């Protein structure tokens, strides 16, 4: 492969300059903002999201509906579990895949689903067990055969009707992707107004050494317009996506 320095020297040369070791970021980019400023801004954003939680939940409902989510707004975690059962039964689901997330420990999904005779798998290796190729493949097989995948969310974004998921232990990348139906459970206080807040918070997570290996913004069902410019849902990801909003 081409040597890195040779490659970068050539670029500097074409720009008619020497290689810069230090560049003052232009004011247009957020890089111009110091870590302290970024962190103070992130704190303000979190506070605003908490203070405006009820209004943001309403805005999310609107944004999500426009993006093709089916939105179910319920008052309590128990009602959320009922909404989940209802969705699963309506789509005649036989097997459900769960992420292991905090929200799902508050919503009694597993118990209620099992009581309804639906097969439930947690898409994660048992807590404490080390990662292995077999464990990864087992999760993948489960994801490709399940009828419904259920997750909580790490953030939701009202502007774009988006849920954000950080893969990590307990949260496979495939639960929200491979099964034909995805249900995302959202609690009050998780909603951000816009993409600006989301990416500012992710940047702050990086500064704090908390940035995850990847994250996904999910804004409605999988879709394509590649055949005759007709919109079809459910290409590689879910054909149907549900948001259960608690609060």
């Amino acid at each position: 492969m081409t040597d890195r320095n040779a490659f970068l020297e050539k670029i500097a040369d074409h720009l008619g300059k020497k290689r810069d070791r230090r560049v003052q970021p232009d004011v247009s980019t957020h890089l111009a903002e110091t870590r302290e400023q970024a962190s103070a801004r992130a704190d303000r954003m979190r506070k605003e999201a908490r203070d405006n939680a009820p209004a943001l939940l309403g805005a999310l409902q609107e944004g999500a509906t426009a993006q093709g989510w089916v939105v179910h707004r319920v008052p309590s975690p128990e009602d959320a579990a009922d909404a989940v059962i209802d969705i699963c039964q309506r789509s005649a689901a036989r097997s459900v895949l769960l992420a292991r997330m905090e929200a799902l420990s508050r919503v009694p999904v597993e118990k209620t689903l099992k009581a309804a005779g639906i097969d439930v798998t947690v898409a994660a290796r048992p807590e404490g067990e080390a990662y292995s190729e077999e464990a990864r493949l087992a999760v993948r097989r489960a994801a490709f055969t399940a009828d419904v995948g259920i997750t909580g969310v790490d953030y939701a974004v009202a502007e774009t009707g988006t849920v954000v998921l950080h893969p990590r232990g307990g949260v496979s990348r495939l639960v929200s992707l491979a099964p034909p139906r995805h249900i995302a459970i959202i609690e009050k206080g998780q909603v951000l107004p816009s993409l600006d807040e989301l990416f500012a918070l992710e940047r702050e997570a990086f500064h704090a050494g908390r940035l995850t290996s990847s994250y996904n913004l999910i804004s409605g069902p999988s879709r394509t317009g590649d055949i005759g410019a007709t919109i079809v849902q459910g290409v590689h990801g879910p054909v149907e996506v549900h948001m259960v909003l608690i609060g």
Partner: protein
Amino acid sequence: MEVKTRAFKGKANETLADPVLQKSLENVYSGFHLRRIQAGGATPGWDEQRDRARAIKAHTIANLDYYLDMLVRNVEAKGGKVHFADDGKEAARFVVDLARSRGVKTVIKSKSMVSEEIGLNDLLEAESIEPVETDLGEYIIQLARETPYHIIAPAIHKTPEQVAELLAAKSGGPKKTTAKEMTAVARTLLRDAFQRADMGVTGVNFAVAETGSITLVTNEGNGRMCTSAPRIHVALMGMEKVVPSMADLSAFLRILIRSATGQRISAYVSVVNGPRAAGDEDGPEEFHLVIVDNNRSRLLKDAALRESLYCIRCGACMNACPVYRKVGGHSYGWVYPGPIGAVVSPVMSGLKEGKALPFASSLCGACREVCPVRIDIPSMLLHLRSELAEGADRSQRSAGVVDRASFRLWRFGMSGRGRFDLGARLVRFVLWPLSRRGWTGWLPFPLGGWTSTRRFKVPAGRSFVARWRNRQGGA
């Protein structure tokens, strides 16, 4: 990808005469252009977002060496590997060698224009590694063994009937009739590939220097599949794709997605910060970022063309272009069609070979107006035209002897009062007998091209100056 820019005129004429293609091309306007216009109008602060994105791009490209260096260090800090490739051959060779060394038999691919540039699929096949395109449009194109027609909608020229035949032949099943049924067939075929493949190859929409991340924008979910299911992820990126900060992504995603399809956001945006972390359930164990030049340096070097590297590949200029909408994507003969393609394709793949492309424009300016980062495409087309006619590099000149002689004569005639009057008298003398009511339908060589499709207004019987003199004398 094979360079066929020389065939522009022939291909364009074929497309113009093909009623099926002309019908498909109407989708470009109704399906994309009108939606983009609506989306822009409905977005508060739309123009400010564009200005900001442009300013960020200008700053980043002006300091590209610095930001690429920052990107590399941060990717490596998270356990990713970065590789540089001067040209397409080197980049493709790298991916194939990596696949072989890891015992990969099947490679799943999310849409990547760089991969088209470097001809990756052909090289993989030559080494008996199966490449599977997973963007539905790209998959259709791969089944048809063609090249993309449009950077956002690669198979927009294929009728549903043609797609049905391709999918039936591949699946061995019956021919489907609706887009929904056909999509279901493709879903089943590709699900198998997602589970078999050991390597995912993707493009990069934006790379973030500060965090060492890459971003993928898709609607189908194939980008997510390619970065979730296989154990190796290779991302191919043109060297201009870097932005400084993660917090800059919101502005870029807003303008990119609205400009591409008119959506507020695509169904999926994936941000990849490296290989899987120790505690993750899944995700690739290896992450490789390949940064490709492949003659982008030529665009960088020429200050008049540098801003073509601000392009975020939304395709809006194609949809807005009255020429693209008639001659279609294949006429341009290389990876990037349409107005931005008429600038970058000839420069990247050979200016003399692609000499027809900078002329494939009426310079109406619709592309500049619609471009989310306000790239001045018409000025760059004019710059390339002048390079072709009288550029410093004589080997790249392509204007014919007759053209050059005529323009020299024109300049001589127009730059002296007496010569101008003489010329005007001469033109009047030659053309007046051939004209009817002041118009002629025939001009002598080399001007015959003008009158082959329209008439030419002959200068008036007496010049303005002569009439003025006459009036002054009579008063």
